[in-house]
């Protein structure tokens, strides 16, 4: 019998071959992954919804897809473990004492209302099934500038510090890249924002002018659009401090690089990814897509992404698929009792080490800014590109 084919578009952050193979085996589906960078993935999803079945990306892109009619509602009644999904995307934080964070809190676009608007008011239809998430900041090589490091607390302002002139790596993704440098400029006292998660035209202009000036004088020199590029820049010592995402950090650690993930005093940049259903899906293929969504919450995928440093929206279901030591290291922030391995089995953490930043609750409770989608996003993208081209 011919197997149903499911076409999934996303980024290298979550489209991992080990996940694809595992899902294919468990579900009896033919699963095809198309890996794109963040912006191209959004462009394809918005302009060609017929060319994908499931969209696997970040919550801060949901409103773009929903506005363009590219995705359809997900019925929570068809999500077996919906009740076990954590509060993060339902109420905006895991526990009431956590910071809500500025920017695009995923809960703001989670639920579909009767008038088709999106909000955190709970309904039985959602835009995106929440899956992997994490907090990001930057990594640095503690062997460089040791005297300096011993004197100062980790801060986003380091991105603007002359100490690292010409050796800073930034992501080229407009929404995420601007968030990182805005946190840096604000922490350094160079630009102030009324609402850093929703900047005005004037604020964007001031920030981009500063960035262009810093690029022209050689301060900002290195930009990456894929995990591999960010890895190579650090691996070849072109950068010693860089915005970086977990899989690249893990790979650098696995290759023996001594790097440290910063826990900035200002707080992290949070992000949440998930799965959305293309507007064209129906019948058998829609059923297959729901099966894939449910599989993602069954625990196995959560364990795979945990070994990449990511958390999952159903931690309890995932715990059964991790060893006690893995759970304690990744989620509880305890020192490892044995060597910790990545999804490919490479040792990435030696026995006795503790995760930078601590436990799940310590890290997720300290979000300064969620990856944003500002009202001026279109303007910001144009100006950001101007900075990249400067």
């Amino acid at each position, binding site marked *: 019998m011919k197997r149903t084919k499911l076409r999934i578009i996303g980024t290298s952050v979550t489209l991992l071959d080990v996940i694809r193979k595992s899902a294919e085996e468990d579900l009896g589906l033919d699963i095809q992954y198309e890996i794109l960078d963040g*912006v191209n993935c*959004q*462009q394809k999803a*918005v*302009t060609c919804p017929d060319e994908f079945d499931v969209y696997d990306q970040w919550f801060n892109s949901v*409103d*773009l897809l929903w*506005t*363009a*009619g590219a995705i359809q509602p997900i019925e929570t009644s068809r999500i077996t473990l919906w009740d076990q999904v954590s509060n993060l995307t339902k109420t905006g934080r895991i526990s009431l004492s956590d910071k809500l964070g500025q920017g695009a809190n995923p809960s703001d676009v989670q639920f579909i209302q009767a*008038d*088709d608007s999106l909000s955190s008011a709970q309904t039985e239809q959602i835009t995106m099934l929440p899956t992997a998430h994490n907090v990001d900041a930057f990594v640095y090589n503690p062997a460089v500038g040791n005297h300096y490091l011993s004197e100062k607390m980790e801060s986003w302002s380091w991105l603007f510090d002359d100490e690292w002139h010409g050796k800073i790596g930034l992501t080229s993704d*407009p929404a995420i890249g601007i968030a990182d440098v805005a946190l840096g400029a604000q922490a350094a006292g160079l630009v102030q924002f009324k609402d850093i998660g929703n900047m*005005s*035209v004037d604020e964007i202009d001031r920030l981009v002018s500063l960035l262009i000036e810093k690029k022209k004088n050689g301060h900002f020199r290195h930009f990456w659009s894929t995990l591999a590029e960010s890895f190579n820049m650090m691996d070849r010592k072109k950068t010693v401090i860089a915005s970086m995402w977990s899989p690249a950090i893990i790979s650098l650690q696995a290759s023996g690089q001594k790097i440290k993930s910063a826990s900035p005093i200002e707080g992290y940049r949070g992000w949440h990814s998930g799965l959305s259903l293309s507007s064209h899906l129906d019948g058998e293929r829609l059923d297959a897509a729901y099966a894939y969504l449910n599989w993602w919450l069954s625990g196995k995928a959560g364990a795979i992404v945990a070994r990449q440093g990511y958390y999952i929206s159903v931690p309890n279901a995932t715990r059964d698929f991790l060893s006690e030591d893995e759970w304690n290291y990744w989620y509880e922030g305890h020192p490892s009792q044995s060597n910790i391995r990545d999804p490919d089995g490479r040792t990435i953490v030696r026995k006795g080490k503790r995760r930078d930043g601590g436990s799940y609750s310590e890290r997720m409770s300290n979000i300064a800014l969620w990856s944003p*989608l500002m*009202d*001026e*996003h*279109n*303007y*910001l*993208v*144009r*100006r950001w*590109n*101007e900075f990249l*081209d400067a």
Partner: protein
Amino acid sequence: MANTKDERVANPNDLSTGSRHLYQSVYGLLLEKINNDDFPQGLHLKEGQLTNILGVSRAPVRRALDLLHEKGFVREASGQGYLVGKESESIQMGLKKLSSILISKKNVDVERNVAWEGIYHEVKDEVTRCLPFGTYRVLETKLGQHFSVSRTVVREVLARLSDRKLIEKDRRSHWIAGPLTANDIRESTEMRQMLEPRALAEVAPKIEVNILRKMRERVAVVEADPGGACHTQIEIIENDLHRRILNSVSNKRLLTSIDQNQLHFIVPNLFRRQFGNALDMKAMADHALILDQLLNRQFEVACVALEAHLKRSQKDIVRKLRVLSVLPKPVTAPYLVNIH
């Protein structure tokens, strides 16, 4: 766009002026007559008849009729020609009567338009199409060359675009268009929120019921079959409520101010062309509600509903503008250069 001699204006007394394509003028004239209900539903339009009345060759008339057919304003007649509308039975009209409708005083005025008007709409369309996609410089010399018009005409066109806040001069005196921001949308919509309900309150009791009914029918047609409607139909509906209905307002400065704040129409128009009409249905429901209240002589309610509609549309347009950030940049006319 083709620049064949056949479609160009050879005579200043022709329908079209300057360098505007003749078929566009014929199309615009026929569409206006259909929209204003000067042409009854079912009117049989024949190529030969129109050619004789308008004094132009067959090619532009044929092209204009094809375009009207393509956009759903006319349907094919069983023999020759086309019938106005979608359902009514065929109505024949004599040459004299048809001629009196087509060659009204207003059209004579149109014939005497100055040269800049011939290219203004095309330049305006090109500029507005680019606005959300970055900063563009308008090259005056290239613009003149493109349309084979003098510098005076170019300056006249640019001055009018500047009046509409579509372009402005930078520090080096270059004409710059864009980028359109969410703040521009907010300001433009806020102005409309102040002006339109005020104008509607004045004109509402004077609007002919027949005109309102026709406007309401147009909305009903789109609501019944959103996928079948073309974007031009939606644009006509938008124009009905936000401009045509307000035409008779006594304070002409008010009308001018309304005309100067049209930035917020740009994004929905571009969005519709890219993604179709299905996403405009909430706005269509608003239009239906406002027109129904006007038909029921509930003028105050209609004004409040109009204000609420404009307020809602602001958020919707800002969200649509964000989506345009991921679309590829459009191919522009040679007189527009993307700077950023």
